[in-house]
């Protein structure tokens, strides 16, 4: 059983992100890491192939520096990496991203495509479903546990009201939620071994993608604005009836 895991390199979520007013894009000049959400996807993929045989291939689209994220996934145990970086793909919208990833995935031998539910920088949350649409295979989203028997994948799906049990026939796109497993730490042996693993660097032309990216991108960010600063709260000075005023305030807000 072969698994493709889609991964992305993002600005370290531990340091606050900033938008660049000139490009309208997230600044990527600070510390970049493998999206923590993707670590769960890589781990889910590794667990599937450890149980059923086969191998994990990671696929990523992003700038050259994204190689570090691919290498981390290889150090965790993925067998092969694919990174598509091209200037024309800068600032790609969700659909362009999905087209590029789907084209790269089509070139792989796969039974399951695993993604996170959304990236920790863009948060569009639609790429997994778009990839499934482009590949014309089912999308099983928000999985919190997964098992495969023969050509049938069963996933427990987290919803607002409870857990759905969903079955689908392979091949499928599966998006996994954070916390679905405990991602392994890359060992030193894994880190050193990652250097020897095959790394594919196709350009858009290799993937027959002449009409994606750049001017053909359907969505454009026309303006960005800072989130409004939180307004100052009301300070109640105690002149004998502060308690009553606080109770009235809370009652008014329907807190009590």
């Amino acid at each position, binding site marked *: 059983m072969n698994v493709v895991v889609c991964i992305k390199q993002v600005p370290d979520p531990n340091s606050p992100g900033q938008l660049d007013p000139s490009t309208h894009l997230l600044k990527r000049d600070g510390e970049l890491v493998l999206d923590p959400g993707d670590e769960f996807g890589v781990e889910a993929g590794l667990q599937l192939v450890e149980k059923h045989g086969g191998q994990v291939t990671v696929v990523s689209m992003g700038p050259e520096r994204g190689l*570090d994220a691919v*290498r*981390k996934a290889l*150090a965790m145990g993925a067998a092969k990496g694919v990174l598509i970086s091209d200037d024309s793909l800068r600032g790609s919208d969700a659909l362009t991203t999905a087209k590029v990833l789907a084209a790269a995935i089509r070139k792989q031998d796969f039974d399951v495509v695993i993604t996170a539910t959304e990236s920790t920088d863009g948060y569009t949350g639609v790429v997994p479903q778009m990839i499934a649409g482009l590949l014309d295979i089912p999308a099983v989203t928000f999985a919190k546990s997964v098992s495969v028997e023969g050509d049938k994948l069963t996933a427990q799906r987290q919803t607002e009201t409870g857990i759905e049990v969903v079955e689908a026939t392979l091949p499928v796109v599966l998006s996994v939620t954070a916390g679905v497993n405990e991602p392994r*730490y*890359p*060992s*030193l*042996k894994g*880190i*050193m071994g990652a*250097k020897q693993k095959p790394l594919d660097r196709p350009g858009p032309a290799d993937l027959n993608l002449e009409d994606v990216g750049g001017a053909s991108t359907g969505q454009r960010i026309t303006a960005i604005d800072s989130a409004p600063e939180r307004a100052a709260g009301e300070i109640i000075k105690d002149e004998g009836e502060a308690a009553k005023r606080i109770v009235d305030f809370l009652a008014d807000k329907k807190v009590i």
Partner: protein
Amino acid sequence: MPFTAEHDALRETVRDFVSRELRPHADEWEEAEYFPDSVFRRMGELGLLGLRYPETYGGQGGDYWSAIVLAEEMTRCGSGGVGMAISVQTEMATPPILKFGTDEQKQRYLVPAIRGEKIASLGITEPDTGSDVASVRTRAVRHNGGWRINGSKLYITNGVRADYILLVARTGAKEDGAHGITLFLVDKETAGFAVSRKLKKLGMHASDTAELSFSDVDVPDSAVLGEVGQGFYHLMWELQGERLIGSAGTIAGAEVIFEETLAWCKDREAFGRPIGKFQVNRHKLVDLYTDISIAKSYVYAVAERWNNGEYPVAEISMAKLFVGQVTSRVADTCLQLHGGFGYMAEAHVSRYFRDSRLIRIGAGTDEVMKEIIAKTALGL
């Protein structure tokens, strides 16, 4: 910088592990004056106890810099004692087994130590002998084709929990001095081997420190590590590695506490401005930053030589001496800059102040370092 992209990736692994699995428990472990043995097993599982050991023995096959990465990152766990216990396991008690041990000894003691299944300790100091190693009184005499050991050891890190000890004992006559010393590997469960006391310390609280007693402990000939009568020289080699890794970890710890103090000085205000903006404090911070940077570069320069297989005794001694002195200044000044909060048990800086004092005593005092440097580098 001596570190490659692979070392950086290893650093990320260790940093993630430390912040997720050690740091959250540090306060509790310090309070309990113990941390669970499961930390050894978990680190063994992650390959962190055998970073620079050969793959043949379950190691990761890395170089000395990978051991330095571990020592540096462990200082972020919030408890000096945990880092020290791991250092004893990976860089003090087990390197002599790899270097001087038989294959059987490696299988029995090194392999499980790398897996974190056996905890190791190293027994040098005694109630009446510290720096003067050649005068140890613990004796091993020939008995029934093996050896019978009698004596006691003091201040033994991991001593309460250890599964075995690398023991320094006298096998020759007293006048043989350094030539009459032999190393032994002794299992905890051997009859006559007992933990007499768990000792209380100024710092390094999460680490267990023991007094051990040996009364008529019989071990076979195969318990001898290296050559009979060569123990002192084997041990001198071990001590170089111990001093170097201790220096690397300690100066990294100083850097961490310096960064915290710098952030504090930018944030804490007095008389209308951040305290770091007062020239008197600013200059203190500059002095520490300069000291730490220079000490670290020197440690790296010496580590590079050690990594290349050289044996730079005077330089290792200078590194440890200088790092110890810098660390004392860092600890004292950083505590002072924290004011009243620095004196509170909950402040990192107060724990660091207590923990870091050990570097000027453990693995050879400042005074012993100076004697070594005088003799080996100055011919005095």
